[in-house]
């Protein structure tokens, strides 16, 4: 009975196992490891990540390293552009000065002259400094007085003499002192002789650049010098690397303080409302049916509210008491208005994931809904949530800046980048740095989060994996 002679008994032995076929050709990577590898290849996203880390350090460590008080006013350096440390001439405290009088000349001319010569010898006395500039000149024959003007731009002849500083009504007073709001810049002083009433058509103009100065007592008060210092030496003024604002407050310190406000709102608000949206959307999507419809209907209503109008309404609804910064009302308003977008997104994801086989399997094994949501569904929507969060940060920062800009945001004196822009825009033409720096910080932050969000979207998209 040997029908199959060709078959031997040892033909039925198992094949020796071939381990090599079982081996994975690529190392096993979790979803997050895989995403991280792909993110690392995206240069723009990585640069953005470093930028964000840098901003975080600027915000958290900045005030430790740059200890200047953001609300202290440096009245010597108001609206200073960014510059290297400045020195000031130490001058003695102000003493009244009597202008010299040329006794040889009459105070009033005998008659009214037809012509007068231009003033000669018009020159500053001593070192012109920002505390005072003193002038003297040679008396003009027959003059009954002098008019003195100051301008920041060069006058042409009798045009554009600028600010009338003084009208002297005696021909023999040959000195004048200017103490009016002097800054360390070039001024053009013009002097015109008069007959005691009317100016004549002759003008002498000189250019004077006063030195930045500080009196001994002011310097001592601010701890810039010690009592042994003699007037005439130069002292180092407070250093403002980013300049100062219109009240003489240090821009760098204010930017750091403002970063704390702007980034706090920009990070905390999205974090809270995304979290709330995740649970709301997760439950709606998981439970489905009537409850889902009801919950999502409500979310639709909240979405339909005109966002900025309600932001403002809620903010005043919560009220800002005296001395409060208004950060908390803004935070609450943002959270109350923005959660539905995340809820909608997560619900959509959950509806998709709920139908997957592994959820069915987990439910068959007795998993409760809360367990399924927390253990399986939410971790699988984590990628989408993370991307939402990254894009939510710049929009929250924008909202804060926007509201502060129209004066509905953080209450002064608390600085935020938006309120600093609001202050800076008023002096945009003369002191552009006051607008430029806060606007730059807002832009960089928003840019970094947007680019990181783009990178994350690509990195977390599992479709991308199969393409490689």
């Amino acid at each position, binding site marked *: 009975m040997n029908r199959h002679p060709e078959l031997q008994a040892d033909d039925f032995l198992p094949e020796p196992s071939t381990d090599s076929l079982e081996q994975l050709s690529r190392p096993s990577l979790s979803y997050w490891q895989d995403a991280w590898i792909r993110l690392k290849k995206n240069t723009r996203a990585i640069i953005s990540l470093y930028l964000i880390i840098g901003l975080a350090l600027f915000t958290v460590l900045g005030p430790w390293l740059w200890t200047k008080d953001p609300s202290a006013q440096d009245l010597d350096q108001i609206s200073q552009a960014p510059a290297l440390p400045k020195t000031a001439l130490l001058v003695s405290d102000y003493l009244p000065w009597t202008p010299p009088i040329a006794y040889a000349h009459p105070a009033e001319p005998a008659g009214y002259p037809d012509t007068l010569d231009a003033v000669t010898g018009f020159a500053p006395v001593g070192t012109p400094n920002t505390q005072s500039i003193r002038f003297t000149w040679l008396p003009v024959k027959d003059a009954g007085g002098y008019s003195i003007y100051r301008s920041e731009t060069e006058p042409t002849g009798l045009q554009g003499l600028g600010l009338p500083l003084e009208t002297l009504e005696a021909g023999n007073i040959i000195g004048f002192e200017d103490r009016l709001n002097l800054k360390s810049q070039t001024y053009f002083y013009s002097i015109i002789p008069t007959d005691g009433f009317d100016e004549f058509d002759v003008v002498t103009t000189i250019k004077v650049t006063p030195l930045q100065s500080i009196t001994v007592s002011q310097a001592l008060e601010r701890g810039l010098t010690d009592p042994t210092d003699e007037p005439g030496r130069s002292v180092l003024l407070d250093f403002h690397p980013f300049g100062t604002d219109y009240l003489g407050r240090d821009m760098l310190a204010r930017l750091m303080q403002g970063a704390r406000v702007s980034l706090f709102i920009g990070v905390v608000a999205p974090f809270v409302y995304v979290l709330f949206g995740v649970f709301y959307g997760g439950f709606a999507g998981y439970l489905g049916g009537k409850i889902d419809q009801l919950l999502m209907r409500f979310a*639709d*209503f909240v979405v*339909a*509210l*005109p*966002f*900025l*109008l*309600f932001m*403002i*309404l*809620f903010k*005043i*609804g*919560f*009220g800002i008491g005296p001395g409060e910064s208004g950060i908390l009302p803004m935070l609450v308003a943002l959270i109350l208005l923005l959660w539905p977008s995340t809820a909608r997104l997560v619900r959509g994801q959950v509806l998709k994931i709920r139908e997957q086989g592994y959820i069915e399997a987990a439910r068959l094994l007795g998993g409760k809904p809360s367990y399924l949501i927390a253990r399986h569904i939410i971790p699988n929507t984590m990628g989408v949530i993370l991307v939402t969060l990254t894009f939510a940060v*710049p929009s929250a920062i*924008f909202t804060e*800046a*926007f509201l502060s*800009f*129209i*004066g*509905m945001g953080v209450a002064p004196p608390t600085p935020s980048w*938006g309120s600093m*822009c*609001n202050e800076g*825009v008023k002096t*945009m*033409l003369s002191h552009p740095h006051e*607008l430029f720096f806060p*606007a730059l910080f*807002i*832009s*960089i932050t*928003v*840019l970094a989060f*947007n*680019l990181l969000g783009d990178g994350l979207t690509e990195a977390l998209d599992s479709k991308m994996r199969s393409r490689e």
Partner: protein
Amino acid sequence: MLKYTFGRILSGLVTIWFIATATFLAMHAVPGDPLMNEKATTPEIRANLARKYGLDKPIAEQYIIYLSNMVQGDFGISFTQQNRKVNDIIQDHFPVSAALGILAITFAALGGILWGALTALYRNQLPDIIIMFLVILGISVPSFVFAALGQLLLVNINQWFDISFLPVAGWGTFAHMIMPSLVLGLGTMALLTRLMRSAMLEIVNEDFIRTARAKGLSPSRIFFQHQLRNAILPVVTVLGPQIAAITTGGFVVELVFAIPGLGRYFVQAVQQLDYTVIMGTTVFYGAFLVFMVILVDIIYGFIDPRVRLK
């Protein structure tokens, strides 16, 4: 299609009711009351004023009066401006905001579609890189900075050439509208460009494009008839919410360019706690937005047959 439209309008009405209620509640939670600004020095005057504006009635009754007036299209009388109806304020100032918004959204949509299509056409080439850089700038820089810079630019142009190229601020002629609406539309334009670009690039890989190419259609026909037309769909979808963003985003532009629009008026009303103006404006804006979204949905139904067949 009729049933779809009807359903959308019904849900829109419910949404408007919700907005009205939320506004009412938010306004009554505000500390302080509008009569504080009036010269209500004695309790008697206060009581009289409260009676005049119906503030002495219980909240529930006030709510019912408020709703029934609103259904009849009456938003009441301003608290701070003597005898000025809120309806009149909206009538006077909304057309200004609307004109600005319409021009801005036109700029944004045309620019977004054009730039988006261009970037997709020149993918990874110089035009793409330049436009995408500008887009990133447009998304990252706050609108008030653009507004300030736009104004500065106009001042400089007018000074350099010693002509009145475009007015720097104010309202009245079409020339007044150009710069503000450009600034207002810039953010949306950047967003639409990005959206358009990714939609265009996604569609290039679709089967029907390959079929069209295989059929021997000319590249320009494929580009305009198949690619562009399909890529516009997602742009239309976001246009509804973006109209909302633009009309309310008009606040800043109206403030910076001194335009007498409703947004500027709203900010002013909030500062003065002018109850009726705030409530009226908010509900009006809300209704407007709901209407715009419904309109876009219906238009979408015409463009994309899949929506209306559902």
